[in-house]
């Protein structure tokens, strides 16, 4: 399996975090790929919600964004933001919010708004969209992103979507849900200590080296004495990803 791409390991690892029958609000990109993979493998009863108002679509073609009509195909409900994000997410019935991000810190706070270069010059990006809402309200939040030191930071340049802000608990912050649950990168799977909310390494992908992970993580990361290895995607998972879910490599490429 040396030919397995990092994105495929990420997608498969993300998919495995979803349990069958759960309700998931999904951002576009690798979160979308991971959830489609979960639905087509071990989680056929997944409820798959898009913030724009689509439930359980079964796209035939890979959408290029959340509002791409490719995302509407064979849905069980076409509805609205009020319905999905108000009447499901804020209502408290969404098990998993699955997000990408520009930056994350060691307490799972996310930045999707802006980056600053060394001179302090600001560069703007997409902002929150449904990200803050999902991070604030889903029962658990899963984040998927490339493992780079400039992305896994001691402090995010802008706190767009809260995790355990300052290490504090969710209720204390006025937030709902249990907060950040997993950070899945192309090197590792990282969790958060249930008490201190601090980041801790849960498993290392077969292709990754522990010293690279430590080197490329800008926040303190607790390392267990024995580091498990993340399972590689199965051949069937790789086939689904490459042949059916994202054959053009829009997100996996």
């Amino acid at each position, binding site marked *: 399996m040396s030919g397995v791409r990092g994105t495929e390991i990420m997608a498969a690892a993300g998919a495995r975090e979803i349990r069958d029958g759960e309700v998931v609000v999904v951002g576009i990109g690798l979160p979308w790929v991971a959830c489609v993979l979960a639905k087509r493998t071990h989680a056929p009863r997944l409820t798959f919600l898009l913030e724009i108002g689509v439930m359980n679509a079964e796209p035939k073609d890979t959408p290029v964004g959340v509002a*791409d009509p490719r995302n509407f195909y064979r849905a069980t409900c076409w509805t*609205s*933001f009020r319905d999905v994000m108000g009447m499901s997410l*804020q209502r408290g019935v969404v098990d998993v919010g699955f997000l990408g991000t520009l930056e994350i810190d060691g307490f799972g706070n996310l930045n999707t708004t802006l980056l600053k270069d060394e001179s302090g010059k600001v560069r*703007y990006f997409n902002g*929150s969209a449904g990200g*803050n809402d999902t991070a604030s309200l889903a029962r658990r939040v899963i984040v998927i992103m490339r493992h780079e030191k400039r992305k896994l930071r001691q402090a995010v340049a802008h706190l*767009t979507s809260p995790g355990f802000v300052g290490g504090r608990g969710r209720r204390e912050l006025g*937030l709902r849900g249990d907060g950040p649950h997993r950070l899945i990168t192309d090197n590792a799977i990282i969790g958060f200590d249930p008490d201190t909310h601090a980041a801790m390494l849960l498993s290392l992908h077969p292709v990754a080296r522990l010293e690279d992970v430590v080197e490329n993580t800008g926040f303190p990361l607790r390392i267990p004495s024995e580091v498990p290895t993340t399972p590689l995607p199965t051949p069937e998972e790789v086939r689904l990803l490459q042949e059916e879910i994202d054959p053009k490599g829009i997100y996996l490429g």
Partner: protein
Amino acid sequence: MTNKVKTVAEVVQTIPDGSHIALGGFAINRGCIAVSHELIRQQKKNLTLSQGVVGLDTDLLVGAGLVSRLIMGGGSLDRFGPVHCVNRARESRSVDAHDYSSLTICFRYLAGALGLSFIPVKSLLASEVLERLEAGSAAKDVQRMKCPFTGEEYLLLRALNPDVSFVHVQVADYDGNSQIHGARWENEEQAKAGRRVIVITEELVPTEYIQRFPEKTIIPAHRVEAVIHQPFGAHPTAVFQCYDFDADHLRLYVDHVKRVERVPEYLKTYVLGTKDHWEYLDKVGGLRRMNELKADRVLGY
């Protein structure tokens, strides 16, 4: 009943400089492109622009310098790139941008649509998004509060009632009954919050057609001031069950606007250099190209 059909030029002529306009597009889907073009042709000034997730329709207006304030939940052209003009205007502070999230923009419209002056929400707490709102000119629109019944912490949002709400729809009758196919994001709230509501429709139908599918009417006639009948009015964005987004033109757009110097070239060629949306459509490929983009009957794109 009545005939509210107007041209986009007629409608835009009635919009004063300084108005608050809400656009119904989301990234590259059902963008109010014909409206943005005409606002630029008529050189409106000092607009406040609100939108859940700003897309090509708003990026154009900001790129053309019409917008002084942005009230937004996010922004993207999906895989085609970011909203370059919007992001650049924010970096240079040439617009006063109020950043929310999709849910909180939707709820500000929801309050406005329901005739409430405020509504609680559980988003944005413990975020820098809220801190920035509280620190800027949006401070008058947000307020923290504890629920008097449960003690739970909430954010109160001031209702958002745009002067004019534009929504691009698939089907409307002459009286304004409007039906949206596929996902509707915050369009119902955004429309009904508007003091004036204008729909741009791909297809103009008799009321008898509306009466066959009354459960699909999202914006009822009595809320609609004018109906603009403009097929392909959202090009190059997608209109579900009508046409796909035009990937070639989206790339061409991004290729222009990613550099500030090339924005005027785009505007000159495709907006100011065309007298109306029909001429624009001819310039971007006309009947043949529109036919290529036409939605597949089964897939809807």
